[in-house]
């Protein structure tokens, strides 16, 4: 990420050069983004584009007419429909609220609140029908509060009104798929409400943010978008000495390191540990990458005040190898891309070495220990857009993976190893309860993904319900634990042919022959519907060469195409023999 830490002045003054440079990276995910206008959109579009490009997303924009977000969403949908946005961003703010004030009757104040809620709800409902993801700004507090502190208390208060609206937006986000809250209330507080807006820019140009605040607004929106499209980082690799505790464990010993509340110096490291621990609850995987003796390094976590224990880490690389190499090894062990790793190290020299190695890992600039956690947190690397039970358990699953890898080395052959895992695949059509997970998985899986087709929640629901489609989702359990739903297939029926429009599998279950079990079930589903032929396509991306020959491996014949795009065909034999031999399959 080139634009973090955010340097607003630099970004605003050099946007064309920055754009040119970012475009050179190539290999973009293209998305259509409609910005509906609360007031002047202006620079927001251009700066948002920079942050999205930095995340590998190339936007095509439709900018609504000035101040007409409500009309364009609710009454004049033609333009939006024609554009077909993937994402709609409603760029509104406090100037789009009809605020009450002292002297306003209770009835009048409540009526204004209901009107505002109704107006925004109508916009959100309309956007939902379009099948686009919606990102809605909540509201910053007013610059002026005539009643002072009481403004937050009385029904006629502006501060109270904004707080009520913000609770309303959050409730919508909690209860509606595809609706995301952009928290400018928090952003403006963090940035400084006084600097967040500039009355002269509002009066002259109807800018709801001061120009200098626009990059922060745009990063926040871009963080949400890249998270939705699976471009979050997945793992945090941590240095130990002076990153997770003060001092050098190899020299000072476990009694000598600073961690905990007894000394002021230890509190900052405790905060960093607490933050890292909390990340595991969001499904972020932790690892250690430290120049240390393994035994000494582990002993640090025996400190009574250490919140993190060695158990919290899926990989533990304490050795004297260079850190860039260790980070690459960690990625391999976790079976994730190096670009899915954030590396946190207090030592500027180590950070520079890792950056210079151009591994793709993100290396935030940490300065003082008191700010380690917030520097990583504000990077948006692990931006959460939904939190399923699967996410909460993901860190645990990666750890189990590392255990499986350790066990593998003790078996004579791979088949024997697979048998020892005692796997059960639960394979069945999509269900209402799994819809959120299958949509999220489809939109963020990049490696085992034949077509990289992405779906809105509505499109997924249609495929679940329509007779035209065969859907299969697979959940994998083994003796180490439950991996949750990790694979899915969507096929489109036309006569006696099924065309596979989506086949994906999470990287955490590669090489378990789950893909064979899925194919067996797909063939069975086809037979039940009198389908005799299965076709599939492969579209090459930077991340999916691993499945370029996958259909060939299954016995498909290539009918056309080259390295970038190929088409494959398979005729179902009368006597189909199941390919999966290492897993029990259940259909519940």
């Amino acid at each position, binding site marked *: 990420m080139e634009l973090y830490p955010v340097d607003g*002045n630099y970004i*605003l*003054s*050099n*946007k*064309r*050069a920055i754009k*040119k440079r970012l475009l050179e990276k190539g290999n973009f995910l293209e998305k259509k983004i409609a910005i509906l206008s609360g007031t002047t959109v*202006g*620079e927001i579009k251009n700066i948002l584009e920079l942050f999205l490009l930095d995340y590998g997303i190339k936007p095509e924009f439709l900018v609504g007419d000035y101040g007409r977000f409500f009309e364009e969403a609710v009454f004049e949908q033609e333009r939006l429909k024609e554009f077909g946005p993937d994402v709609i961003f409603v760029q509104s703010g406090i100037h789009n609220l009809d605020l009450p004030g002292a002297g306003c009757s209770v009835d009048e104040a409540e009526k204004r609140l209901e009107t505002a809620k109704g107006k925004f709800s109508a916009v959100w409902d309309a956007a939902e029908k379009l099948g686009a993801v919606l990102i809605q700004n909540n509201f910053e507090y007013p610059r002026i509060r005539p009643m002072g502190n009481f403004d937050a208390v009385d029904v006629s208060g502006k501060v109270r009104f904004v707080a009520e609206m913000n609770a309303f937006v959050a409730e919508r986000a909690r209860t509606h798929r595809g609706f995301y809250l952009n928290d400018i209330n928090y952003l403006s507080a963090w940035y400084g409400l006084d600097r967040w807006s500039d009355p*002269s*820019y509002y*009066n*002259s*140009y109807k*800018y709801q943010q001061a*120009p*200098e605040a626009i990059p922060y607004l745009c990063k926040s929106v871009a963080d949400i978008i890249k998270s939705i499209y699976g471009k979050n980082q997945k793992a945090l690799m941590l240095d130990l000495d002076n990153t997770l505790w003060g001092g050098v464990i190899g020299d000072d010993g476990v009694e000598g390191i600073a961690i905990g509340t007894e000394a002021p110096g230890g509190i900052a490291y405790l905060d960093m540990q607490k933050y890292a621990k909390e990340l595991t609850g969001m499904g972020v995987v932790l690892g250690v990458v430290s120049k240390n003796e393994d035994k000494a390094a582990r002993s640090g976590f025996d400190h009574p005040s250490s919140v993190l224990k060695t158990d919290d880490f899926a990989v533990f690389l304490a050795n004297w190898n260079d850190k860039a190499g260790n980070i690459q090894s960690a990625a391999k062990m976790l079976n994730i891309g190096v670009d899915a790793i954030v590396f946190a190290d207090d030592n500027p020299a180590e950070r520079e070495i890792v950056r210079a190695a151009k591994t793709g890992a993100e290396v935030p600039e940490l300065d003082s220990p008191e700010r380690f956690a917030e520097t990583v947190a504000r990077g948006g690397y692990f931006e959460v857009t939904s939190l399923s039970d699967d996410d909460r358990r993901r860190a645990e699953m990666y750890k189990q993976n590392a255990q499986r890898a350790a066990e593998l080395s003790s078996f004579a052959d791979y088949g024997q190893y697979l048998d020892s895992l005692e796997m059960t695949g639960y394979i069945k059509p999509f269900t209402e309860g799994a819809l959120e997970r299958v949509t999220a998985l489809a939109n963020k899986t990049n490696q085992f993904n034949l077509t990289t087709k992405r779906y809105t929640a509505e499109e997924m629901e249609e495929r679940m319900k329509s007779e035209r489609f065969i859907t299969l989702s697979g959940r994998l359990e083994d003796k180490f634990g439950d991996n949750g739903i990790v694979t899915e297939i969507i096929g489109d029926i036309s006569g006696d042919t099924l065309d596979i429009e989506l086949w994906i599998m999470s990287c955490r279950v590669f090489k378990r022959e789950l893909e064979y079990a899925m194919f067996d079930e797909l063939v069975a589903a086809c037979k039940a519907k009198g389908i005799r032929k299965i076709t599939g396509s492969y579209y090459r991306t930077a991340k999916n060469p691993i499945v370029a020959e996958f259909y060939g491996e299954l016995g498909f014949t290539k009918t056309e195409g080259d390295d970038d795009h190929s088409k494959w065909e398979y005729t179902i034999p009368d006597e189909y023999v199941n390919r999966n031999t290492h897993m029990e399959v259940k259909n519940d």
Partner: protein
Amino acid sequence: MTREEVIEKVQDIFRNNFDDDEIVLTDETTAADIEDWDSLEQINLLSTIEREFKIKFTVGDVEGLANVGAMIDVIMKKLA
């Protein structure tokens, strides 16, 4: 700061903003001379000038600026 120094600094701001090192500003330069200089860019230029020179324009200061010369005059007045 002399008028020449101000012009030079403003010219740098223009060059960065439009990513074009060949822009040469004179008092007579207007929006018609620079392809991408529209009303939105006018706001960007003014806000960058405010930050770079650590000045703050009032609404009246920047309404109806005829050309770069007028812009420089306003900056000089604010710096005085």
